[in-house]
């Protein structure tokens, strides 16, 4: 099992889902794939398909319509899976706290492992967030990162 546990930490495939966010964090998630940040250095690939994903990256506050979609996507991901909430509004609703269609943070619908604050979260912070998610996974598995 050792090699599988190590490999898990070296190859987190992410899927990005945008629940009604303002696009700020979405483009920052995309920007972290591009040459200047290049998160593929850590083996991170944006798969865009829940069946191949390990880490669900969620941006934006959950609203009444995307809550069902988010739950559905989370259920389709095979274990072990992690969820990262990127951006202030995906953590708590942030500036949209008094919008009538906003339920609040992502953790109202799916369990969140790491919260990446920032509005919009910087690519560096997103990299930090993924690394912290991996550290949590490593701790759960009892292997060193």
């Amino acid at each position: 099992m050792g090699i599988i546990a190590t490999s898990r930490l070296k190859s987190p495939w992410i899927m990005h889902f945008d629940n009604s966010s303002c696009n700020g964090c979405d483009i920052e998630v995309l920007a972290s794939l591009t040459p200047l940040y290049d998160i593929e250095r850590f083996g991170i690939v944006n798969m865009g398909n829940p069946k191949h994903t390990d880490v669900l990256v969620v941006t934006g506050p959950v609203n009444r319509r995307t809550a069902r979609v988010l739950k559905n996507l989370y259920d389709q991901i095979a274990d072990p899976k992690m969820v990262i909430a990127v951006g202030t509004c995906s953590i708590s609703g942030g500036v949209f706290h008094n919008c009538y269609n906003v339920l609040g943070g992502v953790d109202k619908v799916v369990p969140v492992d790491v919260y990446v604050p920032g509005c919009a979260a910087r690519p560096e912070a997103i990299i930090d967030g993924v690394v912290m998610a991996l550290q949590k996974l490593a701790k759960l598995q009892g292997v060193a990162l």
Partner: protein
Amino acid sequence: MNAWIIAIVTVIVAPFIGGFLAGIDRRITARLQGRFGPPILQPFYDFFKLLGKSKIAASRLQLMWIYAYLVLMITALLFLVLRLDILLMMFILGFAGVCFALGGFSSRSPYSHLGANRELMQMLAYEPVLLFLALGVYAQNGSFLISQIYASPTPLISRLWPIFIALLVILTIKLRKSPFDLSTSHHAHQELVKGIMTEYSGPYYALIELTEWYEIVLVLGIVSLFVANPLWVGIIIALAAYVLELFVDNITARMTVGWMVRFVWSVGVTLCILNLIWFWVFAAFKGVS
């Protein structure tokens, strides 16, 4: 007895070569795009991680097709390394492709269906060239046996270079590189998500990756047949062709299925037919028979 050892060694070593090549592919692709790129061993990390994921299958049937795809691909590779019949190898390879497409059809996802449709269209494009290649080998050596290619003093490329060019074209399809990464693409920023592979997850997706590694070795092995004597020249040519594909991948956009079939049939198949006609006319003038 000797054949058994070669077969076992091939089955074990080929995935390592394929995975290593895939890792180099990702690194070079990243460098071509101005990025740093993942570690060379990244495909292996991906593979083992996928093995450790929980098993979710959209349908039991697709698993059968995936196992068949893997077994047939290994069989085709064994035909190559054991220097058996090239025509039969091409048909086994074709059968493997059909199994993969049927696997795509056996779940209900529309993306998977469209991907499988495109996979069949891709086969329609590359199968004729592979068969013409087998015919060309027969025309030159009078035998379909790969061992004859190795025994023959004149390399295939000296007379079959048009077919070699056609093979380079379909290599793009086989390696799923742009402009022909239609049924599925490596980075999945595609209108069909992951196309034919959309519905596989976890260990089953790892099996597909494993099969792809065998496939890389197999198609590069076919390329290396063109200079079979000495073998190292053939291997260098195969690796050069692989790097060429990486460049082509990075300087072209993805084309459509119709364009691909038109292009391969008009350029690839025409080259193959002209090659064979020229070959036979040449032979007739020489008065061989």
